[in-house]
């Protein structure tokens, strides 16, 4: 596979755009014409067409360099987006090992890992990195192991400690989040950090999800898709910077909604970390403008039906209640009422 990397921005002039290929491989999150919370876990293994985002353990796409540049800007402005409580040091090395091993195997043309005992050499060709370090020795890296590898990997990463029959959000690199604060939530358990989510607690969703996650096994990762809506292709929709992006939410018009309203999909995966017994929780964000989504007729029809019928409190929680009439009105033009096929992939 040959990838050419775009150079675009997720802020300022918002020059981000998906190629036709990127639109076709977008992980559309709805497998039917309606949506409600569920523990929609499945094994994280290859699925879909050859170029689908599910084919490799840590998907690298055309936005790789742009996303890493955006992360660097966010971290420079607010270093607390990357934090690790002291007991998570080993989990950070677990994550580094997991990602380096997977990327070197899945993308041998882009990444290489050479190991000689604890002496490791890591080559990241797209980013021009060629580093040698000693595995498990923090002093041999320019920063902590979690920060080091996640500055080179698309998606947010939470590292969860497992104890007392619960999972604890004790470390993370969070720069492309759907409106939650690592700095505030760090140290919370599974129920606490999900506390603001409406409905799901009453539905018993979290109890079931937690039980599932506590038993995720080494070498058997799982995944699920989550989604929300974002105005403008912006990765950094954090509470910290809400005053910056909040006004943009109110800038939609019938004329620009197709271009500026994005469906934001998180490919979440869950990995048992063998050395620390923690859990790695990558949250990979994909963005697609409505006008691009509707080029897949099945997706245009289905997204219209899902958003039209979504309960109001979920629309509020996902932050687009105020824009829903505009969005639904726009999408209705691409829904001729024809039946849609099951599953998430284009016909």
């Amino acid at each position, binding site marked *: 596979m040959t990838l050419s990397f775009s150079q675009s921005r997720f802020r300022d002039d918002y020059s981000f755009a998906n190629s036709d290929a990127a639109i076709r491989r977008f992980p559309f999150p709805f497998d039917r014409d309606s949506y409600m919370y569920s523990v929609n876990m499945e094994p994280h293994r290859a699925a879909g067409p050859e170029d689908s985002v599910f084919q490799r353990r840590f998907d690298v796409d055309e936005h790789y360099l742009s996303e890493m540049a955006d992360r660097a800007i966010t971290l420079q402005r607010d270093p607390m987006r990357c934090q690790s409580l002291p007991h998570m040091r080993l989990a950070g090395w677990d994550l580094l090992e997991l990602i380096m091993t997977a990327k070197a195997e899945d993308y041998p043309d882009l990444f290489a890992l050479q190991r000689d005992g604890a002496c490791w050499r890591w080559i990241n060709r797209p980013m021009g990195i060629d580093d040698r370090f000693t595995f498990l020795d923090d002093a041999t890296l320019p920063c902590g192991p979690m920060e080091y590898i996640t500055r080179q990997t698309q998606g947010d990463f939470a590292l969860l400690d497992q104890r007392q029959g619960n999972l604890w959000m004790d470390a993370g690199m969070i720069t492309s989040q759907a*409106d939650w*604060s690592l*700095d*505030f*939530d*760090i*140290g*919370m358990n599974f*129920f*606490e*950090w*999900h*506390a*603001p989510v*409406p409905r799901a*607690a009453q539905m018993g969703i979290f109890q079931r999800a937690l039980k599932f996650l506590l038993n995720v096994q080494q070498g058997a990762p799982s995944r699920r898709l989550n989604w929300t809506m974002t105005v403008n292709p912006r990765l950094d929709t954090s*509470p*910290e*910077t*809400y*005053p910056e992006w*909040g*006004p943009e*939410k*109110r800038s939609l018009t019938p004329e620009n909604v197709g271009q500026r309203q994005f469906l934001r999909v998180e490919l979440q995966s869950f990995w048992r970390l063998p050395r620390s017994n923690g859990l790695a929780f990558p949250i990979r964000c994909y963005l697609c403008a409505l006008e691009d989504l509707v080029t897949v007729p099945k997706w245009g029809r289905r997204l219209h039906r899902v958003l039209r019928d979504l309960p109001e409190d979920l629309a*509020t929680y996902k*932050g687009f209640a*105020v824009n829903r009439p505009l969005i639904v009105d726009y999408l209705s033009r691409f829904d001729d009422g024809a039946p849609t096929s099951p599953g998430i992939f284009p016909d």
Partner: protein
Amino acid sequence: MTPAPANRIPSHPTYAPLQPRPGHAALMIADAGGAVALAQLLAQAPDLRATARILLVAADVPPDLPAVTPVPGTEALEAAIAGALQGARMGLQAYLAGSQGLIGQAQALLLAQGMAPGAIQMQQCGGPARRMQCVHCKTIAPDVVIDPYRCPGCGRWLYVRDHFSRRLGAFQGVCIDAETPGLVPEPTEIAP
């Protein structure tokens, strides 16, 4: 984002009347409003008097409390707690009573010193004032009684969320007019 509903969410701390627990020592922390709760606890369990050590924050010392160390204000609490925990051993129980702000801060300091949450009890006494952290500039406002309130750090109007961080000992405040700058509702008193 919109304000959380008024009913309690799972990150909200739980407060309950202090109950005596087994342990070889007791560290009690209270403000003027919480001193009564400590007196009640000690009346209920007189054995605790022999091993209790009390940090009393910004309050006159009532005559019926034993082993009181006065702490002039919450800014001196960290040093006072560190001193009180010198050489502390497992089996120590902490009893906190007072405003949400005081007990939230005291709990955060005790956790940072290695105490387990299960050894810390909290009883809220007094009004509904909350310790709030501004999510934007991270300034902590110790006693917020209105919603929205003006952040003493960045001057933004923030709404009061129910989302609580044990580590910070604070609730989260988020800009209320981020999407519609200047449109700030009239502040109302926080419900208890």
